[in-house]
Protein backbone atom coordinates (compact mmCIF):
# COMPACT_ATOMS: atom_id res chain seq x y z
CA UNK A 1 0.00 0.00 0.00
CA UNK A 2 1.61 3.26 -1.14
CA UNK A 3 1.21 6.13 1.26
CA UNK A 4 0.68 9.64 -0.01
CA UNK A 5 2.58 12.62 1.36
CA UNK A 6 -0.52 13.78 3.20
CA UNK A 7 -0.98 10.29 4.59
CA UNK A 8 2.59 10.26 5.80
CA UNK A 9 2.22 13.65 7.50
CA UNK A 10 -0.94 12.33 9.12
CA UNK A 11 0.94 9.25 10.34
CA UNK A 12 3.60 11.45 11.96
CA UNK A 13 0.95 13.66 13.52
CA UNK A 14 -0.68 10.56 15.02
CA UNK A 15 2.66 9.43 16.41
CA UNK A 16 3.14 12.86 18.00
CA UNK A 17 -0.30 12.50 19.59
CA UNK A 18 0.47 9.01 20.91
CA UNK A 19 3.83 10.21 22.23
CA UNK A 20 2.33 13.20 24.04
CA UNK A 21 -0.30 10.98 25.66
CA UNK A 22 2.39 8.53 26.77
CA UNK A 23 4.65 11.30 28.09
CA UNK A 24 1.77 12.89 30.00
CA UNK A 25 0.87 9.54 31.51
CA UNK A 26 4.30 9.32 33.13
CA UNK A 27 4.76 13.05 33.61
CA UNK A 28 7.32 12.96 36.41
CA UNK A 29 9.39 10.33 34.65
CA UNK A 30 9.28 12.32 31.41
CA UNK A 31 10.41 15.48 33.17
CA UNK A 32 13.32 13.72 34.89
CA UNK A 33 14.40 12.07 31.66
CA UNK A 34 14.24 15.26 29.68
CA UNK A 35 16.26 17.00 32.38
CA UNK A 36 19.33 15.02 31.29
CA UNK A 37 19.05 16.17 27.71
CA UNK A 38 18.25 19.68 28.85
CA UNK A 39 21.46 19.90 30.87
CA UNK A 40 23.43 18.34 28.01
CA UNK A 41 22.14 20.76 25.38
CA UNK A 42 22.58 23.66 27.80
CA UNK A 43 26.23 22.70 28.38
CA UNK A 44 27.06 22.14 24.71
CA UNK A 45 25.32 25.30 23.53
CA UNK A 46 26.94 27.40 26.22
CA UNK A 47 30.34 25.87 25.41
CA UNK A 48 29.93 26.86 21.76
CA UNK A 49 28.81 30.35 22.78
CA UNK A 50 31.72 30.84 25.19
CA UNK A 51 34.14 29.51 22.59
CA UNK A 52 32.97 31.88 19.90
CA UNK A 53 32.84 34.66 22.47
CA UNK A 54 36.52 34.03 23.17
CA UNK A 55 37.19 34.19 19.43
CA UNK A 56 35.37 37.50 19.12
CA UNK A 57 37.15 38.85 22.17
CA UNK A 58 40.58 37.91 20.78
CA UNK A 59 39.77 39.43 17.38
CA UNK A 60 38.61 42.61 19.10
CA UNK A 61 41.85 42.95 21.00
CA UNK A 62 43.85 42.30 17.84
CA UNK A 63 41.73 44.85 16.02
CA UNK A 64 42.47 47.28 18.84
CA UNK A 65 46.16 46.96 17.94
CA UNK A 66 45.54 48.17 14.43
CA UNK A 67 45.14 45.76 11.58
CA UNK A 68 48.37 46.10 9.62
CA UNK A 69 51.32 46.13 11.94
CA UNK A 70 54.17 44.27 13.55
CA UNK A 71 55.29 44.32 17.17
CA UNK A 72 58.97 44.00 18.05
CA UNK A 73 59.89 42.88 21.60
CA UNK A 74 63.40 42.93 23.10
CA UNK A 75 63.19 39.22 23.87
CA UNK A 76 65.53 36.46 22.64
CA UNK A 77 63.88 34.42 19.88
CA UNK A 78 65.12 31.40 17.95
CA UNK A 79 65.20 27.65 17.89
CA UNK A 80 68.17 25.71 19.18
CA UNK A 81 71.54 27.23 18.51
CA UNK A 82 73.73 28.95 21.02
CA UNK A 83 73.07 32.44 22.22
CA UNK A 84 75.36 35.27 23.12
CA UNK A 85 72.27 37.24 24.17
CA UNK A 86 71.03 36.35 27.63
CA UNK A 87 68.59 39.26 27.41
CA UNK A 88 66.94 41.05 24.55
CA UNK A 89 67.90 44.33 22.96
CA UNK A 90 65.85 46.87 21.08
CA UNK A 91 66.66 50.54 20.73
CA UNK A 92 65.28 53.74 19.34
CA UNK A 93 68.06 53.64 16.74
CA UNK A 94 66.68 50.26 15.58
CA UNK A 95 63.29 51.90 15.18
CA UNK A 96 64.77 54.67 13.05
CA UNK A 97 66.67 52.12 10.94
CA UNK A 98 63.47 50.18 10.33
CA UNK A 99 61.61 53.33 9.38
CA UNK A 100 64.40 54.30 7.00
CA UNK A 101 65.15 51.06 5.19
CA UNK A 102 62.06 48.79 5.24
CA UNK A 103 59.62 49.27 2.35
CA UNK A 104 55.97 49.94 3.24
CA UNK A 105 56.52 51.24 6.79
CA UNK A 106 54.08 54.08 7.46
CA UNK A 107 55.14 54.93 10.99
CA UNK A 108 56.83 53.45 14.05
CA UNK A 109 55.67 53.63 17.64
CA UNK A 110 58.58 53.07 20.05
CA UNK A 111 57.40 52.68 23.63
CA UNK A 112 58.45 52.64 27.25
CA UNK A 113 55.98 51.26 29.77
CA UNK A 114 55.85 51.88 33.51
CA UNK A 115 53.37 51.42 36.31
CA UNK A 116 52.60 54.78 37.88
CA UNK A 117 50.54 56.33 40.67
CA UNK A 118 48.56 59.44 39.76
CA UNK A 119 47.29 62.11 42.12
CA UNK A 120 44.94 64.97 41.25
CA UNK A 121 43.61 67.09 44.10
CA UNK A 122 42.43 64.39 46.52
CA UNK A 123 41.90 61.64 43.94
CA UNK A 124 44.29 58.83 43.16
CA UNK A 125 44.63 56.27 40.39
CA UNK A 126 47.17 53.64 39.43
CA UNK A 127 47.70 52.89 35.81
CA UNK A 128 50.20 52.10 33.06
CA UNK A 129 52.06 55.04 31.54
CA UNK A 130 53.08 54.55 27.92
CA UNK A 131 56.01 56.67 26.83
CA UNK A 132 55.38 57.21 23.12
CA UNK A 133 56.06 59.38 20.14
CA UNK A 134 53.55 61.17 17.95
CA UNK A 135 53.70 58.22 15.53
CA UNK A 136 52.09 55.91 18.12
CA UNK A 137 48.61 57.32 17.42
CA UNK A 138 48.55 56.28 13.76
CA UNK A 139 50.28 52.91 14.30
CA UNK A 140 48.02 51.84 17.15
CA UNK A 141 44.93 53.30 15.53
CA UNK A 142 44.06 55.57 18.41
CA UNK A 143 43.59 59.31 18.83
CA UNK A 144 42.42 62.01 21.18
CA UNK A 145 38.68 62.42 21.53
CA UNK A 146 39.06 65.64 23.50
CA UNK A 147 42.11 67.93 23.27
CA UNK A 148 45.12 66.65 21.35
CA UNK A 149 47.61 63.78 21.18
CA UNK A 150 51.34 63.96 22.06
CA UNK A 151 53.12 66.09 19.46
CA UNK A 152 56.67 66.08 18.10
CA UNK A 153 57.52 69.24 20.05
CA UNK A 154 56.45 67.53 23.31
CA UNK A 155 58.83 64.65 22.54
CA UNK A 156 61.71 66.96 21.63
CA UNK A 157 61.38 69.03 24.76
CA UNK A 158 60.47 66.22 27.16
CA UNK A 159 57.33 68.14 28.13
CA UNK A 160 55.39 67.08 31.23
CA UNK A 161 52.14 66.55 29.34
CA UNK A 162 49.83 63.52 29.20
CA UNK A 163 46.89 62.14 27.26
CA UNK A 164 44.54 60.22 29.58
CA UNK A 165 42.58 57.10 28.84
CA UNK A 166 38.84 57.62 29.54
CA UNK A 167 38.96 55.41 32.66
CA UNK A 168 41.82 57.40 34.18
CA UNK A 169 40.15 60.68 33.24
CA UNK A 170 36.98 59.59 35.03
CA UNK A 171 38.87 58.41 38.11
CA UNK A 172 40.87 61.60 38.48
CA UNK A 173 38.46 64.25 37.27
CA UNK A 174 34.99 62.70 37.31
CA UNK A 175 32.75 64.16 34.65
CA UNK A 176 34.74 67.42 34.29
CA UNK A 177 36.67 68.11 31.10
CA UNK A 178 40.23 67.42 32.28
CA UNK A 179 42.05 69.14 29.40
CA UNK A 180 44.37 71.79 30.86
CA UNK A 181 44.07 70.36 34.38
CA UNK A 182 47.13 69.42 36.40
CA UNK A 183 47.99 66.20 38.24
CA UNK A 184 51.11 64.58 39.67
CA UNK A 185 53.02 61.41 38.98
CA UNK A 186 55.38 60.70 41.89
CA UNK A 187 55.38 64.39 42.86
CA UNK A 188 56.17 65.49 39.31
CA UNK A 189 53.47 67.84 37.98
CA UNK A 190 51.92 67.03 34.57
CA UNK A 191 49.30 68.80 32.46
CA UNK A 192 46.47 66.98 30.69
CA UNK A 193 46.42 67.81 26.97
CA UNK A 194 43.81 65.32 25.79
CA UNK A 195 41.60 62.32 26.46
CA UNK A 196 41.80 59.15 24.31
CA UNK A 197 38.90 57.69 22.38
CA UNK A 198 37.39 54.82 24.38
CA UNK A 199 38.64 51.36 23.31
CA UNK A 200 36.53 49.25 25.63
CA UNK A 201 37.92 46.14 27.20
CA UNK A 202 39.01 42.73 26.04
CA UNK A 203 39.32 39.64 28.26
CA UNK A 204 38.29 41.74 31.23
CA UNK A 205 41.29 43.96 30.55
CA UNK A 206 40.39 47.65 30.51
CA UNK A 207 42.09 49.16 27.45
CA UNK A 208 41.08 52.64 28.64
CA UNK A 209 43.04 52.43 31.89
CA UNK A 210 46.22 54.00 30.48
CA UNK A 211 47.97 57.34 30.05
CA UNK A 212 50.31 58.41 27.26
CA UNK A 213 53.27 60.71 27.85
CA UNK A 214 56.18 61.75 25.57
CA UNK A 215 58.80 58.96 25.40
CA UNK A 216 61.55 61.38 26.40
CA UNK A 217 59.62 62.40 29.50
CA UNK A 218 59.01 58.78 30.45
CA UNK A 219 62.72 57.98 30.08
CA UNK A 220 63.77 60.95 32.22
CA UNK A 221 61.13 60.69 34.95
CA UNK A 222 60.13 57.00 35.39
CA UNK A 223 62.25 54.00 36.27
CA UNK A 224 62.39 51.50 33.43
CA UNK A 225 65.04 48.83 34.29
CA UNK A 226 66.39 48.88 30.73
CA UNK A 227 70.10 48.24 29.95
CA UNK A 228 70.81 51.38 27.94
CA UNK A 229 69.70 55.00 27.58
CA UNK A 230 68.29 54.29 24.14
CA UNK A 231 66.51 50.97 24.86
CA UNK A 232 62.79 50.34 24.35
CA UNK A 233 60.20 48.08 25.95
CA UNK A 234 58.26 47.67 22.76
CA UNK A 235 58.18 48.84 19.18
CA UNK A 236 55.05 49.04 17.04
CA UNK A 237 55.69 49.19 13.30
CA UNK A 238 52.75 50.30 11.15
CA UNK A 239 52.55 49.41 7.46
CA UNK A 240 50.77 50.90 4.50
CA UNK A 241 47.71 49.00 3.27
CA UNK A 242 48.56 46.12 0.99
CA UNK A 243 52.04 45.54 2.42
CA UNK A 244 53.19 41.92 2.42
CA UNK A 245 53.64 41.47 6.18
CA UNK A 246 55.52 38.18 5.87
CA UNK A 247 58.07 39.74 3.58
CA UNK A 248 58.33 42.87 5.75
CA UNK A 249 58.97 40.62 8.74
CA UNK A 250 61.77 38.80 6.86
CA UNK A 251 63.37 42.11 5.92
CA UNK A 252 63.13 43.48 9.47
CA UNK A 253 64.64 40.29 10.83
CA UNK A 254 67.53 40.49 8.38
CA UNK A 255 68.10 44.18 9.19
CA UNK A 256 68.05 43.72 12.97
CA UNK A 257 70.18 40.57 12.86
CA UNK A 258 72.85 42.43 10.95
CA UNK A 259 72.62 45.40 13.33
CA UNK A 260 73.27 43.06 16.28
CA UNK A 261 75.75 40.91 14.30
CA UNK A 262 73.80 37.74 15.00
CA UNK A 263 75.54 34.78 13.42
CA UNK A 264 73.56 32.32 11.31
CA UNK A 265 71.77 29.71 13.51
CA UNK A 266 72.34 31.91 16.55
CA UNK A 267 69.44 33.05 18.73
CA UNK A 268 68.54 36.68 18.08
CA UNK A 269 67.88 39.18 20.89
CA UNK A 270 64.52 40.36 19.56
CA UNK A 271 61.15 38.89 18.60
CA UNK A 272 58.91 40.07 15.78
CA UNK A 273 55.19 39.26 15.62
CA UNK A 274 52.83 40.53 12.94
CA UNK A 275 49.09 40.97 13.35
CA UNK A 276 48.58 38.22 10.75
CA UNK A 277 50.48 35.83 13.03
CA UNK A 278 48.51 36.96 16.06
CA UNK A 279 45.27 36.28 14.25
CA UNK A 280 46.41 32.86 13.13
CA UNK A 281 47.85 31.83 16.48
CA UNK A 282 44.91 33.05 18.47
CA UNK A 283 42.36 31.48 16.17
CA UNK A 284 44.19 28.18 16.61
CA UNK A 285 44.17 28.63 20.35
CA UNK A 286 40.53 29.60 20.51
CA UNK A 287 39.59 26.70 18.20
CA UNK A 288 41.32 24.27 20.57
CA UNK A 289 39.72 25.99 23.55
CA UNK A 290 36.31 25.68 21.95
CA UNK A 291 36.80 22.02 20.97
CA UNK A 292 37.85 21.10 24.49
CA UNK A 293 34.84 22.90 25.97
CA UNK A 294 32.43 21.26 23.53
CA UNK A 295 34.00 17.84 24.07
CA UNK A 296 33.56 18.11 27.83
CA UNK A 297 30.01 19.39 27.47
CA UNK A 298 29.18 16.58 25.04
CA UNK A 299 29.75 14.07 27.81
CA UNK A 300 26.73 15.44 29.65
CA UNK A 301 24.67 15.16 26.47
CA UNK A 302 25.85 11.57 26.12
CA UNK A 303 24.70 10.86 29.68
CA UNK A 304 21.36 12.48 28.86
CA UNK A 305 21.08 10.28 25.77
CA UNK A 306 21.74 7.16 27.80
CA UNK A 307 18.94 8.26 30.15
CA UNK A 308 16.65 8.52 27.13
CA UNK A 309 17.60 5.03 25.99
CA UNK A 310 17.00 3.62 29.45
CA UNK A 311 13.55 5.17 29.79
CA UNK A 312 12.55 4.19 26.27
CA UNK A 313 13.48 0.58 27.02
CA UNK A 314 11.28 0.74 30.12
CA UNK A 315 8.49 2.31 28.08
CA UNK A 316 8.71 -0.42 25.42
CA UNK A 317 8.58 -3.13 28.08
CA UNK A 318 5.62 -1.53 29.83
CA UNK A 319 3.73 -1.19 26.59
CA UNK A 320 4.48 -4.57 25.08
CA UNK A 321 0.80 -5.48 25.09
CA UNK A 322 -0.11 -2.23 23.34
CA UNK A 323 2.55 -2.99 20.72
CA UNK A 324 1.07 -6.47 20.19
CA UNK A 325 -2.41 -5.00 19.87
CA UNK A 326 -1.30 -2.41 17.33
CA UNK A 327 0.42 -5.12 15.32
CA UNK A 328 -2.75 -7.27 15.39
CA UNK A 329 -4.73 -4.28 14.16
CA UNK A 330 -2.40 -3.88 11.19
CA UNK A 331 0.62 -1.83 12.36
CA UNK A 332 3.75 -2.67 10.42
CA UNK A 333 7.20 -2.81 11.95
CA UNK A 334 8.02 0.69 10.75
CA UNK A 335 4.80 2.05 12.28
CA UNK A 336 5.84 0.75 15.69
CA UNK A 337 9.45 1.86 15.21
CA UNK A 338 8.41 5.37 14.20
CA UNK A 339 6.00 5.63 17.12
CA UNK A 340 8.81 5.11 19.63
CA UNK A 341 11.33 7.17 17.68
CA UNK A 342 8.94 10.11 17.71
CA UNK A 343 8.44 9.68 21.44
CA UNK A 344 12.20 9.75 22.09
CA UNK A 345 12.71 12.67 19.72
CA UNK A 346 9.95 14.70 21.41
CA UNK A 347 11.48 14.05 24.83
CA UNK A 348 14.83 15.24 23.51
CA UNK A 349 13.55 18.24 21.58
CA UNK A 350 11.57 19.53 24.56
CA UNK A 351 14.66 19.11 26.75
CA UNK A 352 16.83 20.64 24.04
CA UNK A 353 14.56 23.66 23.63
CA UNK A 354 14.57 24.39 27.37
CA UNK A 355 18.34 23.82 27.50
CA UNK A 356 18.77 26.22 24.58
CA UNK A 357 16.68 28.91 26.27
CA UNK A 358 18.73 28.54 29.46
CA UNK A 359 21.95 28.75 27.43
CA UNK A 360 20.74 31.93 25.72
CA UNK A 361 19.92 33.40 29.11
CA UNK A 362 23.33 32.42 30.50
CA UNK A 363 25.16 33.79 27.44
CA UNK A 364 23.25 37.06 27.74
CA UNK A 365 24.14 37.25 31.42
CA UNK A 366 27.79 36.71 30.51
CA UNK A 367 27.85 39.51 27.98
CA UNK A 368 25.89 41.91 30.19
CA UNK A 369 27.52 41.30 33.57
CA UNK A 370 30.96 39.92 32.66
CA UNK A 371 31.49 41.98 29.52
CA UNK A 372 32.27 38.79 27.60
CA UNK A 373 30.77 38.58 24.10
CA UNK A 374 29.23 35.09 24.44
CA UNK A 375 26.35 34.81 22.02
CA UNK A 376 24.05 31.99 20.88
CA UNK A 377 23.57 32.62 17.19
CA UNK A 378 20.58 31.51 15.13
CA UNK A 379 22.68 28.77 13.54
CA UNK A 380 23.81 27.46 16.92
CA UNK A 381 20.21 27.54 18.18
CA UNK A 382 18.89 25.62 15.18
CA UNK A 383 21.83 23.25 15.50
CA UNK A 384 21.03 22.61 19.17
CA UNK A 385 17.43 21.68 18.37
CA UNK A 386 18.50 19.49 15.46
CA UNK A 387 21.18 17.89 17.62
CA UNK A 388 18.65 17.05 20.34
CA UNK A 389 16.36 15.43 17.78
CA UNK A 390 19.32 13.42 16.49
CA UNK A 391 20.16 12.42 20.08
CA UNK A 392 16.58 11.18 20.47
CA UNK A 393 16.71 9.19 17.27
CA UNK A 394 20.16 7.80 18.05
CA UNK A 395 19.43 6.74 21.61
CA UNK A 396 15.76 5.97 20.98
CA UNK A 397 16.76 3.91 17.96
CA UNK A 398 17.64 0.70 19.73
CA UNK A 399 14.51 0.60 21.95
CA UNK A 400 12.33 1.49 18.95
CA UNK A 401 13.93 -1.22 16.85
CA UNK A 402 13.45 -3.71 19.66
CA UNK A 403 9.77 -2.77 19.90
CA UNK A 404 9.29 -3.19 16.15
CA UNK A 405 10.89 -6.65 16.18
CA UNK A 406 8.55 -8.08 18.83
CA UNK A 407 6.47 -11.03 17.74
CA UNK A 408 2.79 -9.97 17.76
CA UNK A 409 1.70 -13.14 19.58
CA UNK A 410 4.29 -12.89 22.35
CA UNK A 411 3.56 -9.19 22.72
CA UNK A 412 -0.20 -9.73 22.95
CA UNK A 413 0.28 -12.48 25.49
CA UNK A 414 2.58 -10.46 27.77
CA UNK A 415 1.60 -9.29 31.28
Amino acid at each position, binding site marked *: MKRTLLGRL*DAWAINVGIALTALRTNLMRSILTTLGVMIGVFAVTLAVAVGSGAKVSVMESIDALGSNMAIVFPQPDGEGGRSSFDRGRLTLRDARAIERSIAGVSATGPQLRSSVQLVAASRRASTTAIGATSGYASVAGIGAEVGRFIGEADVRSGARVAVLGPTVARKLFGSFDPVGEAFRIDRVPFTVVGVLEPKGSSFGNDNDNVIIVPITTARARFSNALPGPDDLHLLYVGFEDGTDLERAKREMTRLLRSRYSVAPREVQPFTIRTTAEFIEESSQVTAIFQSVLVAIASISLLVGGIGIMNIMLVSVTERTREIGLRMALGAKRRDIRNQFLVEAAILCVIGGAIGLLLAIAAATAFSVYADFPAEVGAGVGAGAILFSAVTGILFGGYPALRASRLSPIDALRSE
Partner: protein
Amino acid sequence: MIRPLVEARDLAKSYRVGEETVHALRGVSVTLETGEFVAIMGASGSGKSTFMNMVGCLDVPSAGALLVDGVETGAMSSDSLAELRNRTIGFVFQQFNLLARTSALDNVAVPLIYAGVAPAERRERARAKLEAMGLGDRLDHSPAKLSGGQQQRVAIARALVTEPKILLADEPTGALDSATSDEIMRIFQQRNDEGITIVLVTHEADIARYARRRILFRDGRIITDEPVTDRMVAA
Protein backbone atom coordinates in the same frame (compact mmCIF):
# COMPACT_ATOMS: atom_id res chain seq x y z
CA MET B 1 -15.95 -22.11 -8.18
CA ILE B 2 -16.22 -20.29 -4.88
CA ARG B 3 -12.96 -20.57 -3.01
CA PRO B 4 -13.05 -21.13 0.74
CA LEU B 5 -12.24 -18.17 2.98
CA VAL B 6 -9.80 -20.17 5.08
CA GLU B 7 -8.22 -23.36 3.86
CA ALA B 8 -5.79 -25.37 6.00
CA ARG B 9 -3.99 -28.35 4.47
CA ASP B 10 -1.96 -30.59 6.76
CA LEU B 11 -1.20 -27.60 8.94
CA ALA B 12 1.57 -28.17 11.49
CA LYS B 13 3.30 -25.93 13.97
CA SER B 14 6.13 -26.78 16.27
CA TYR B 15 8.18 -24.67 18.63
CA ARG B 16 11.51 -25.31 20.19
CA VAL B 17 11.38 -24.79 23.92
CA GLY B 18 14.94 -25.21 25.13
CA GLU B 19 16.04 -28.70 24.08
CA GLU B 20 12.51 -29.94 23.45
CA THR B 21 10.32 -29.51 20.39
CA VAL B 22 6.66 -28.88 21.19
CA HIS B 23 4.21 -29.92 18.48
CA ALA B 24 1.30 -27.52 18.90
CA LEU B 25 -0.44 -28.57 15.70
CA ARG B 26 0.07 -32.00 14.10
CA GLY B 27 -1.57 -31.90 10.69
CA VAL B 28 -4.85 -30.00 10.60
CA SER B 29 -6.91 -29.87 7.41
CA VAL B 30 -10.09 -27.85 7.45
CA THR B 31 -11.93 -25.29 5.36
CA LEU B 32 -14.03 -22.38 6.58
CA GLU B 33 -16.49 -20.92 4.11
CA THR B 34 -17.66 -17.35 3.86
CA GLY B 35 -20.60 -16.67 6.15
CA GLU B 36 -19.89 -19.44 8.63
CA PHE B 37 -20.05 -19.03 12.43
CA VAL B 38 -17.54 -21.50 13.82
CA ALA B 39 -16.80 -22.22 17.47
CA ILE B 40 -13.30 -23.54 18.06
CA MET B 41 -13.16 -25.55 21.27
CA GLY B 42 -10.59 -27.49 23.21
CA ALA B 43 -8.68 -27.55 26.46
CA SER B 44 -5.61 -25.39 26.91
CA GLY B 45 -2.70 -26.97 25.06
CA SER B 46 -5.08 -28.54 22.54
CA GLY B 47 -3.75 -26.36 19.74
CA LYS B 48 -6.83 -24.17 19.37
CA SER B 49 -4.94 -20.96 20.20
CA THR B 50 -2.16 -21.83 17.78
CA PHE B 51 -4.74 -22.49 15.09
CA MET B 52 -6.46 -19.20 15.85
CA ASN B 53 -3.15 -17.27 15.72
CA MET B 54 -2.55 -18.69 12.29
CA VAL B 55 -6.03 -17.94 10.97
CA GLY B 56 -5.47 -14.43 12.38
CA CYS B 57 -2.20 -14.17 10.41
CA LEU B 58 -0.30 -13.46 13.63
CA ASP B 59 1.78 -16.57 13.06
CA VAL B 60 2.77 -18.74 10.10
CA PRO B 61 2.82 -22.56 9.83
CA SER B 62 5.98 -24.69 10.15
CA ALA B 63 4.62 -27.18 7.66
CA GLY B 64 1.56 -27.61 5.51
CA ALA B 65 -0.31 -24.73 3.92
CA LEU B 66 -2.74 -22.12 5.10
CA LEU B 67 -4.68 -19.94 2.70
CA VAL B 68 -6.49 -16.95 4.12
CA ASP B 69 -8.75 -15.18 1.65
CA GLY B 70 -6.95 -17.09 -1.10
CA VAL B 71 -3.46 -16.03 0.00
CA GLU B 72 -0.81 -18.47 1.18
CA THR B 73 0.51 -17.03 4.44
CA GLY B 74 3.53 -19.29 4.95
CA ALA B 75 6.03 -17.27 2.92
CA MET B 76 4.73 -13.79 3.66
CA SER B 77 6.82 -11.03 5.20
CA SER B 78 5.80 -9.52 8.50
CA ASP B 79 4.66 -6.34 6.70
CA SER B 80 2.48 -8.27 4.25
CA LEU B 81 0.96 -10.20 7.14
CA ALA B 82 0.24 -6.90 8.86
CA GLU B 83 -1.59 -5.66 5.76
CA LEU B 84 -3.53 -8.91 5.45
CA ARG B 85 -4.60 -8.69 9.12
CA ASN B 86 -5.60 -5.09 8.71
CA ARG B 87 -7.70 -5.79 5.62
CA THR B 88 -9.17 -9.21 6.32
CA ILE B 89 -9.30 -9.87 10.08
CA GLY B 90 -11.07 -8.16 12.94
CA PHE B 91 -9.86 -9.19 16.41
CA VAL B 92 -11.90 -9.30 19.60
CA PHE B 93 -10.04 -10.26 22.80
CA GLN B 94 -11.05 -11.54 26.20
CA GLN B 95 -9.54 -8.52 27.97
CA PHE B 96 -10.91 -6.07 25.36
CA ASN B 97 -7.40 -4.64 24.80
CA LEU B 98 -8.51 -1.03 24.45
CA LEU B 99 -5.93 1.76 24.69
CA ALA B 100 -6.19 3.43 28.10
CA ARG B 101 -6.64 7.22 28.26
CA THR B 102 -7.91 7.14 24.71
CA SER B 103 -11.51 7.88 23.75
CA ALA B 104 -13.81 5.18 22.38
CA LEU B 105 -13.80 7.00 19.04
CA ASP B 106 -9.99 7.09 18.82
CA ASN B 107 -9.77 3.44 19.91
CA VAL B 108 -12.10 2.37 17.11
CA ALA B 109 -10.19 4.49 14.59
CA VAL B 110 -6.80 2.81 15.26
CA PRO B 111 -7.02 0.11 12.52
CA LEU B 112 -7.95 2.81 10.00
CA ILE B 113 -4.70 4.65 10.81
CA TYR B 114 -2.74 1.61 9.66
CA ALA B 115 -5.00 1.27 6.62
CA GLY B 116 -3.94 4.79 5.59
CA VAL B 117 -7.45 6.30 5.82
CA ALA B 118 -7.60 10.10 6.04
CA PRO B 119 -8.43 11.65 9.47
CA ALA B 120 -11.91 12.98 8.66
CA GLU B 121 -13.01 9.66 7.14
CA ARG B 122 -11.51 7.78 10.09
CA ARG B 123 -13.64 9.72 12.54
CA GLU B 124 -16.76 9.32 10.45
CA ARG B 125 -16.38 5.56 10.04
CA ALA B 126 -15.48 5.04 13.70
CA ARG B 127 -18.50 7.07 14.79
CA ALA B 128 -20.80 5.06 12.51
CA LYS B 129 -19.57 1.74 13.94
CA LEU B 130 -19.92 2.95 17.53
CA GLU B 131 -23.46 4.17 16.82
CA ALA B 132 -24.28 0.77 15.32
CA MET B 133 -23.10 -0.73 18.63
CA GLY B 134 -25.44 1.59 20.52
CA LEU B 135 -22.58 3.68 21.86
CA GLY B 136 -23.39 6.92 20.00
CA ASP B 137 -23.46 8.80 23.32
CA ARG B 138 -20.14 7.39 24.58
CA LEU B 139 -17.82 8.50 21.78
CA ASP B 140 -15.56 10.59 24.02
CA HIS B 141 -15.51 8.19 26.97
CA SER B 142 -12.22 6.55 27.85
CA PRO B 143 -12.32 2.78 28.58
CA ALA B 144 -12.07 3.41 32.33
CA LYS B 145 -15.48 5.15 32.21
CA LEU B 146 -17.20 2.26 30.40
CA SER B 147 -18.64 -1.00 31.75
CA GLY B 148 -17.18 -4.35 30.65
CA GLY B 149 -19.98 -4.92 28.14
CA GLN B 150 -19.58 -1.41 26.74
CA GLN B 151 -15.83 -1.91 26.45
CA GLN B 152 -16.33 -5.14 24.56
CA ARG B 153 -18.78 -3.40 22.22
CA VAL B 154 -16.15 -0.70 21.56
CA ALA B 155 -13.70 -3.52 20.79
CA ILE B 156 -16.21 -5.11 18.39
CA ALA B 157 -16.73 -1.75 16.69
CA ARG B 158 -12.93 -1.55 16.31
CA ALA B 159 -12.81 -5.07 14.86
CA LEU B 160 -15.52 -4.23 12.32
CA VAL B 161 -14.41 -0.74 11.32
CA THR B 162 -12.17 -1.96 8.47
CA GLU B 163 -15.06 -4.11 7.11
CA PRO B 164 -13.05 -7.34 7.50
CA LYS B 165 -14.13 -10.72 6.09
CA ILE B 166 -13.41 -12.61 9.30
CA LEU B 167 -14.21 -11.66 12.89
CA LEU B 168 -11.84 -13.57 15.15
CA ALA B 169 -13.02 -13.62 18.76
CA ASP B 170 -10.79 -15.15 21.44
CA GLU B 171 -12.90 -15.93 24.56
CA PRO B 172 -14.85 -12.67 24.02
CA THR B 173 -17.18 -13.35 26.97
CA GLY B 174 -14.54 -14.68 29.34
CA ALA B 175 -14.51 -11.46 31.38
CA LEU B 176 -18.28 -10.79 31.27
CA ASP B 177 -21.31 -11.92 33.29
CA SER B 178 -23.90 -14.14 31.62
CA ALA B 179 -26.42 -11.41 30.74
CA THR B 180 -23.73 -9.30 29.13
CA SER B 181 -22.32 -12.39 27.43
CA ASP B 182 -25.71 -13.02 25.85
CA GLU B 183 -25.79 -9.40 24.67
CA ILE B 184 -22.36 -9.77 23.04
CA MET B 185 -23.29 -13.08 21.41
CA ARG B 186 -26.45 -11.48 20.02
CA ILE B 187 -24.26 -8.87 18.33
CA PHE B 188 -22.13 -11.65 16.83
CA GLN B 189 -25.19 -13.49 15.55
CA GLN B 190 -26.59 -10.29 14.00
CA ARG B 191 -23.28 -9.60 12.20
CA ASN B 192 -23.14 -13.21 11.06
CA ASP B 193 -26.67 -12.93 9.68
CA GLU B 194 -25.44 -9.91 7.72
CA GLY B 195 -22.82 -12.16 6.13
CA ILE B 196 -19.58 -11.77 8.10
CA THR B 197 -17.66 -14.93 8.93
CA ILE B 198 -17.08 -15.46 12.64
CA VAL B 199 -14.47 -17.65 14.26
CA LEU B 200 -15.11 -17.90 18.00
CA VAL B 201 -12.55 -19.50 20.29
CA THR B 202 -14.05 -20.61 23.58
CA HIS B 203 -13.81 -23.32 26.16
CA GLU B 204 -17.40 -22.79 27.35
CA ALA B 205 -19.87 -25.21 25.79
CA ASP B 206 -22.74 -22.77 26.42
CA ILE B 207 -21.05 -20.03 24.43
CA ALA B 208 -20.20 -22.43 21.60
CA ARG B 209 -23.96 -23.10 21.21
CA TYR B 210 -24.41 -19.64 19.68
CA ALA B 211 -22.32 -20.78 16.68
CA ARG B 212 -23.46 -22.89 13.73
CA ARG B 213 -20.47 -25.21 13.55
CA ARG B 214 -18.31 -26.64 16.30
CA ILE B 215 -14.70 -27.80 15.88
CA LEU B 216 -13.02 -29.57 18.79
CA PHE B 217 -9.22 -29.70 19.11
CA ARG B 218 -7.22 -32.17 21.16
CA ASP B 219 -3.44 -32.76 21.13
CA GLY B 220 -2.90 -30.63 18.05
CA ARG B 221 -5.56 -32.35 15.94
CA ILE B 222 -9.22 -31.82 15.14
CA ILE B 223 -11.21 -34.63 16.76
CA THR B 224 -14.75 -33.50 15.98
CA ASP B 225 -16.14 -31.11 13.39
CA GLU B 226 -19.95 -30.99 13.40
CA PRO B 227 -22.89 -28.61 12.98
CA VAL B 228 -24.39 -27.18 16.17
CA THR B 229 -27.70 -28.94 16.56
CA ASP B 230 -28.85 -27.37 19.82
CA ARG B 231 -28.19 -23.82 18.60
CA MET B 232 -28.95 -21.03 21.00
CA VAL B 233 -30.35 -17.83 19.56
CA ALA B 234 -29.65 -14.78 21.69
CA ALA B 235 -32.65 -12.97 23.11
